[in-house]
C-alpha cells in the first residue's frame, strides 16, 4: 500500500504542476500537452514514454486496490459479528473514510480519463486541444462537473492525508518528533495538492481562464 | 478456650540444616538429592496458580526439564494478582553503599515480622534476593534506572537503607510479565501444559503422598482429575475472606483450604496485614478497595476533626485549631510515617470515637494543603500526580482542592499452609510457595518483601527442594479409577450438585458480604476475646444459613461465575472460623494481630514472647470433636534477639 501509494502521489504532484501551465495561456498549455508525448525521444519512439508511464500507473493502481481488498477482506474475517452499537470514531475521519474514499477516487479517475484523456465525455473533446478541453469542461454552465471534480479532489486530499501519514508509519516512522513531522507533512502535501488542482476549474469558473 | 480447639503434639522443621545461618542454604542445596536430566522428562509437576511464585516456579521447572502442568482461574496466566503490586522489590545488593547487606535485610525482616518468623527461612530469602534482581534484569524487566544506566533504588516502608528496586508504581506488573513471558516460552516449547480458566477444587492424596488434583474447567464445567509426581500450590492469600480487600475479586483460599482439609496444617491464619492508605468505601455497592501508595504519607498530613460534631462539615470549614493531627500528636518522632499496623489502628480508633469523615464515618483526611503551600502545586503533582489522578477517577473529588479521604483495608495475609525449610507441607509431595505459605513474614510483612518472597520461592528455592523430593520418583502411575481419585472426584461433584440444588433466596455475594462484615468487625484491626467468641458463633450460624438458603443460578456444565463464587465462599466460612480461633488463642499482640487485652498502658501492642514465640499450625477439625488441633512449632532466635518496636 505504502509503495504504490507513494508512486501515485508522485504522479499526482507532477500532474498538478503541469496543470498550472494553463495560467501561461492556451499555447503554452497545449504545447505542454504535446511535449508530454515527446519525452524520451529520440531514444524512445513518439509517445512511448507516455505509454510506459500509463502502464506503470495502472500497475500501481491495481496493486494499490489489490492490497486494499486483501486488507478489507481480512478485516471482515477478523470481525464476523458486527457491533450492535455503531463504533464511535476515536481516531481520525480521514482514516475511517479510506475505503469508501478510495472507491470514489477510483470512479473519478475513470470519469476523468474518459473526460480529459480520451475526450469521450468532454464537450470539446479534441485531441491535443488541452486548453480548450479544460475551459469548456469547467464552463459556468457545467457547474455540476466542477462540483463533482471538487468533491473528488477533496476526497483525494483526505485519502492522501491519512495515506501519507500511514505510509510513513509502515515504512518505520517511530519517534514522537517524527510523528509531528509526519502529520504536518501529510497535511501540507494534501492541502497543496488539493489547492493546486482546484485552482484550475475555479479559474475557469470565474473567467480567469477561458 | 479449650472449647474451640484441641492441643496436639509439637511440630518441627526438620529440613533446615543446623549450624551457621550463613551457610544453611548452601548446605541444603548441596545435600539435596539431584535428579538426572534424562529422568526429569519422566516426572510431572502440577503447579496451581501463575502469580510471581507459581509463574516463576513453572517456568524454572520446565526449563530444568520437568513436565509441568499449570492451572489458573484467570483467562491468562498474566492476570494473577501479583500484577497489582505497586511499590517494589527488596534486594540486598547494597548498590547505594549505604551499609546494606544480606544480614541487614535478614535482620530487618525478622524484626519487621515482630519475631514470629523462622530465622532460617528469612536468611535464605535475603540470600536469594540478589539473584532475583539479576534474573529479572536478564529477562528484560524494565526497572527504573539512573542517568548512568544503572538501576535506581529507593527506601521503602521505613527502612533506613535504599534497597528497593522498582518500575514506577507497577513493579508487580513488570515482574509478573517477566515470569509470564518465561512461562509462555516454555508453553511454546511444549514443556508446560497451560490450563487457564481451570480451578483446583480438591487435592488427591494416594499412599500418603500428594499425587494430583481435581479441577473444574470453568468454561465447560467439566470435572477432571489431573495426576502428577508432585503438586505445588501457589494460589495466593486469603484476604478476600473479608469480602472487601485490596485483593482481586477472584482471589480465594479454596486450593489451600482443600489441601488443609486433606491433612496439610494451616499456620498462623490470624496474621493479616491491614494497609492504612486505601480509598474508603463509598456505599453498599462497594465491591473492592483500592490501595494507594504509602508514599503519600511522606507529604500528606493525617487528621480528623477534634469534635465529632464537625465531621459532617466540609473540610475547608474546619478551622486549623479544630483539627486533630492525631498521628503527629501521639507519635511525635515518626508522625505520619509510623508503620502500617500502627497507622491503621490509629485511624480505626478515631473513627470508633465517632470522628471519622465521609460516608458512614469511615475515613480520615490525608491533607496535602501544607505540602502544596510549601512545595508548590507543581512539585506535588510531579511526585504524586498519578496517585491524585487515580483518587479523583475513583472518588470524583480533586485532592488538590479538598483533602483525600483514606481508610485502612485488608491487603495481605501472612498466614498460610505450614511448610518446612523445603517449602514442603505436612503432606509429602505437596509444596506451597508465595503468599499461600506462611513461611517468611512472621506476624507482619515489610513493604516490598512480598514480591521478593514469591520470586525467591519460585525461581530459586523450590526448584532445588522439589528436586530432592522427586529424586525418589517417578512414582507409581495412578489410574483414573483408583479409589482415592474416584473419591476426590465424587466429593467435588457432590459439592457442586449440593450448591446448585439448594436454590434458596439469598445470593452468594450477600453471604460473602455479611461474612466480611463479621470478620472486619471482630477479626480485623483489633481483636478481643469477647468479640472473637461472638464472631465464631456468628460465622457458624451464617455458614449453616448459607447451606440452607444460598441461591446459585444456572448449571454446572457452563461458565457459571456464581457457582465458582459459591464454592469459594463456602471455604471462606471454614477458614474464617479457624482465623478467629487462632486469633482467640493468641493472647498477645504481635504484628498484624492486635489483641485488645494485650497492650501497654499507652495503647501499644504488647507481645508475650515467653508464651507465644511459636508458629500455630492447625490441623483440620476431623473426628468427633469437630475442633481443630493446634500443633506448635517453637521459634528459636539465635541471631536476632526479640526486642520491642517503638515509634513514639
Amino acid at each position, binding site marked *: 500500500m505504502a509503495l504504490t501509494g507513494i508512486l501515485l502521489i508522485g504522479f499526482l504532484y507532477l500532474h498538478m504542476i503541469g496543470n498550472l501551465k494553463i495560467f501561461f495561456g492556451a499555447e503554452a498549455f497545449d504545447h505542454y500537452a504535446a511535449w508530454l508525448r515527446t519525452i524520451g525521444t529520440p531514444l524512445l519512439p513518439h509517445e512511448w514514454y507516455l505509454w510506459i508511464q500509463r502502464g506503470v500507473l495502472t500497475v500501481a493502481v491495481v496493486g494499490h486496490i489489490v492490497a486494499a481488498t486483501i*486488507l478489507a477482506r*481480512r*478485516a471482515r*474475517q*477478523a*470481525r464476523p459479528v*458486527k*457491533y*450492535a452499537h455503531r*463504533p*464511535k470514531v*476515536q*481516531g481520525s475521519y480521514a*482514516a*475511517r473514510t479510506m475505503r469508501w474514499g478510495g472507491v470514489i477516487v477510483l470512479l473519478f479517475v475513470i470519469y476523468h480519463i474518459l473526460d480529459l484523456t480520451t475526450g469521450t465525455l468532454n464537450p470539446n473533446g479534441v485531441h491535443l486541444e488541452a486548453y480548450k478541453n479544460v475551459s469548456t469542461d469547467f464552463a459556468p454552465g457545467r457547474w455540476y462537473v466542477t462540483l463533482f471534480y471538487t468533491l473528488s479532489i477533496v476526497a483525494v486530499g483526505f485519502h492522501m492525508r491519512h495515506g501519507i501519514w500511514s505510509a*510513513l*508509519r509502515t*515504512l*518505520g*516512522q*517511530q519517534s*514522537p518528533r517524527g510523528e509531528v513531522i509526519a502529520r504536518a507533512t501529510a497535511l501540507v502535501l494534501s492541502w497543496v495538492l488539493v489547492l493546486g488542482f482546484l485552482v484550475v476549474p475555479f479559474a475557469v469558473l470565474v473567467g480567469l481562464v477561458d | 478456650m479449650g472449647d474451640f480447639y484441641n492441643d496436639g503434639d509439637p511440630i518441627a522443621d526438620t529440613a533446615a540444616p543446623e549450624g551457621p545461618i550463613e551457610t544453611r542454604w548452601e548446605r541444603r542445596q548441596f545435600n539435596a538429592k539431584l535428579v538426572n536430566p534424562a529422568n526429569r522428562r519422566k516426572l510431572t509437576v502440577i503447579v496451581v496458580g501463575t502469580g510471581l511464585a507459581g509463574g516463576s516456579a513453572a*517456568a*524454572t521447572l520446565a526449563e530444568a526439564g520437568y513436565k509441568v502442568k499449570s492451572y489458573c482461574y484467570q483467562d491468562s496466566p*498474566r*492476570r494473577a494478582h501479583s500484577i*497489582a503490586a505497586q511499590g517494589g522489590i527488596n534486594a540486598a545488593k547494597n548498590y547505594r553503599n549505604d551499609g546494606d547487606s544480606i544480614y541487614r535485610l535478614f535482620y530487618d525482616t525478622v524484626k519487621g515480622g515482630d519475631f514470629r518468623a523462622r530465622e532460617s527461612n528469612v536468611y535464605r530469602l535475603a540470600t536469594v534476593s540478589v539473584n532475583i*534482581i*539479576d*534474573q*529479572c*534484569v536478564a*529477562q*528484560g524487566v*524494565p526497572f*527504573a*534506572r*539512573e*542517568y548512568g*544506566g544503572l538501576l535506581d533504588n529507593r527506601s521503602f516502608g521505613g527502612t533506613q537503607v535504599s534497597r528497593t528496586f522498582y*518500575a514506577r508504581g507497577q513493579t508487580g*506488573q*513488570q515482574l509478573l510479565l517477566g515470569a509470564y513471558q518465561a512461562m*509462555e*516460552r516454555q508453553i511454546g516449547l511444549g514443556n508446560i501444559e497451560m490450563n*487457564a480458566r481451570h480451578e483446583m477444587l480438591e487435592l488427591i492424596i494416594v499412599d500418603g503422598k500428594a499425587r494430583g488434583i481435581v479441577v473444574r474447567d470453568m468454561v465447560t464445567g467439566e470435572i477432571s482429575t489431573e495426576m502428577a509426581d508432585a503438586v505445588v500450590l501457589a494460589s495466593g492469600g486469603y484476604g478476600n475472606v473479608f469480602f472487601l480487600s*485490596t485483593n*482481586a*475479586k477472584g482471589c480465594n483460599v479454596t486450593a489451600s483450604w482443600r489441601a488443609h482439609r486433606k491433612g496439610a496444617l494451616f499456620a498462623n491464619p490470624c496474621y493479616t496485614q491491614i494497609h492504612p492508605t486505601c480509598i474508603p468505601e463509598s*456505599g453498599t455497592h462497594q*465491591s473492592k478497595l*483500592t490501595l494507594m501508595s504509602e508514599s503519600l504519607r511522606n507529604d500528606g498530613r493525617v487528621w480528623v476533626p477534634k469534635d465529632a460534631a464537625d465531621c459532617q462539615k466540609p473540610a475547608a470549614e474546619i478551622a486549623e485549631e479544630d483539627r486533630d493531627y492525631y498521628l503527629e500528636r501521639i507519635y511525635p518522632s515518626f508522625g505520619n510515617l509510623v508503620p502500617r499496623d500502627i497507622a491503621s489502628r490509629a485511624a480505626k480508633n478515631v473513627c470508633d470515637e465517632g470522628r471519622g469523615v465521609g460516608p458512614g464515618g469511615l475515613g480520615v483526611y490525608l491533607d496535602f494543603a501544607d505540602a502544596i503551600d510549601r512545595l508548590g502545586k507543581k512539585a506535588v503533582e510531579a511526585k504524586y500526580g498519578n496517585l491524585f489522578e487515580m483518587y479523583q*477517577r*475513583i472518588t470524583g473529588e480533586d485532592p488538590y482542592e479538598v483533602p483525600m479521604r483514606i481508610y485502612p483495608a485488608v491487603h495481605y495475609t501472612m498466614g498460610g499452609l505450614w511448610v518446612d525449610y523445603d517449602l514442603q507441607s505436612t503432606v509429602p509431595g505437596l509444596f506451597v510457595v508465595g503468599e499461600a505459605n506462611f513461611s517468611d513474614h512472621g506476624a507482619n510483612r515489610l513493604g516490598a518483601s512480598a514480591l521478593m518472597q514469591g520470586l525467591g520461592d519460585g525461581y*530459586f528455592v523450590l526448584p532445588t527442594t522439589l528436586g530432592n523430593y522427586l529424586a525418589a520418583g517417578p512414582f507409581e502411575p495412578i489410574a483414573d479409577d483408583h479409589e482415592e481419585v474416584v473419591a476426590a472426584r465424587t466429593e467435588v461433584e457432590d459439592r457442586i450438585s449440593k450448591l446448585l440444588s439448594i436454590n434458596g433466596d439469598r*445470593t452468594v*455475594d*450477600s453471604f460473602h458480604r455479611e461474612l466480611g462484615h463479621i470478620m472486619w468487625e471482630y477479626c480485623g484491626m483489633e481483636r478481643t476475646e469477647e468479640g472473637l467468641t461472638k464472631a465464631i458463633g456468628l460465622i457458624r450460624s451464617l455458614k449453616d444459613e448459607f447451606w440452607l438458603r444460598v441461591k446459585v443460578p444456572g448449571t454446572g456444565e457452563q*461458565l457459571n*461465575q456464581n457457582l465458582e463464587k459459591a464454592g469459594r465462599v463456602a471455604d471462606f466460612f471454614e477458614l474464617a472460623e479457624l482465623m478467629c480461633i487462632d486469633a482467640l488463642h493468641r493472647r498477645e499482640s504481635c504484628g498484624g494481630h492486635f489483641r485488645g487485652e494485650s497492650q501497654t498502658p499507652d495503647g501499644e501492642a504488647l507481645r508475650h514472647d515467653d508464651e507465644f514465640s511459636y508458629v500455630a499450625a492447625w490441623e483440620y477439625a476431623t473426628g468427633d470433636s469437630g475442633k481443630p488441633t493446634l500443633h506448635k512449632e517453637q521459634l528459636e532466635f539465635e541471631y536476632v534477639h526479640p526486642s520491642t518496636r517503638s515509634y513514639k
Partner: protein
Amino acid sequence: MDIQVRVWRQENRSDNGRMVTYDVKDISPDASFLEMLDVLNEKLILDGDDPVAFDHDCREGICGACSMVIDGVAHGPEKATTTCQLHMRHFKNGDVIDVEPWRAAAFPVIKDLVVDRSAFDAIIAAGGYITAPTGAAPEAHATPVPKKDADLAFEAATCIGCGACVAACPNGSAMLFTAAKVAHLGLMPQGQPERDTRVLDMLQAQDDAGFGGCTNMGECTQVCPKGIPLTLIGRLNADYRKAVRKKL
C-alpha cells in the same frame, strides 16, 4: 440514578446472541460500571434469571481482565480508563447504555461479555520473551541501559493485554499489542539477540490467530487504557523490514 442497559446476551460459543434491555434502578454515581452490573446481577439472580457473565478481577485497572464495549467505545467514554475504573458519575439519569463484548474472530465469545483472549498468549509464546533460563543471569549491573531506553521500554511494557486495541480496530488487528511487546524487549540490550526472530515469529502468530491487518487507523491507541502510543507500530514495522531483509 436510574438507567437502562442493553446487554449482549449469548449462552455459549454457538449461540447467536442478542441485545437484551434491563432496568437498573437506584445506582449510586460513585459506583463503578462493574458494580452497577453487580447490582443488576444480584437482582437477576433473585428474580430467577441468568446473571450477566463478564470478566473482571483486580478492579483496579491493572490485570486487564475487564473488557466491555460501552456505547461503541472499548472500555467506555473515559480516556485511558479500564471498564473497572469507569464510574457511573460519567453517565446521566435515564441514559440507555449499550454493553457488548470485544468483537473479533480471534476472541470468540464464551458467554455474554466473556471472550477467549488466549490468542494473545499465543503471540507472546511465539516470541514475546527474552531467553534467560533461571540461574544463567549475569550480575544486574553488568549491562547498563540508557535511562531513555529503559523509560521507553517501560512505557511499552505497561500494556495490560486487555484487548481493547483489537476491539476498537476497524480491521480487528492486534498490531498495537504485538508492537508494544516488540518495542519493550527490542529497546533493551538483553533483547537484541532475538530481535529479528521475535518480530517475525510474533507477527506470524498474530496472522495465524486470525487478527486483521493494520492500516494505521489509530483507533487502538485512543482506547488503550495505558495510552500505548501508535509510534510503536512504526518501530515494529522498521524491525520487521530489517528482519526480512536480513533473512533474504
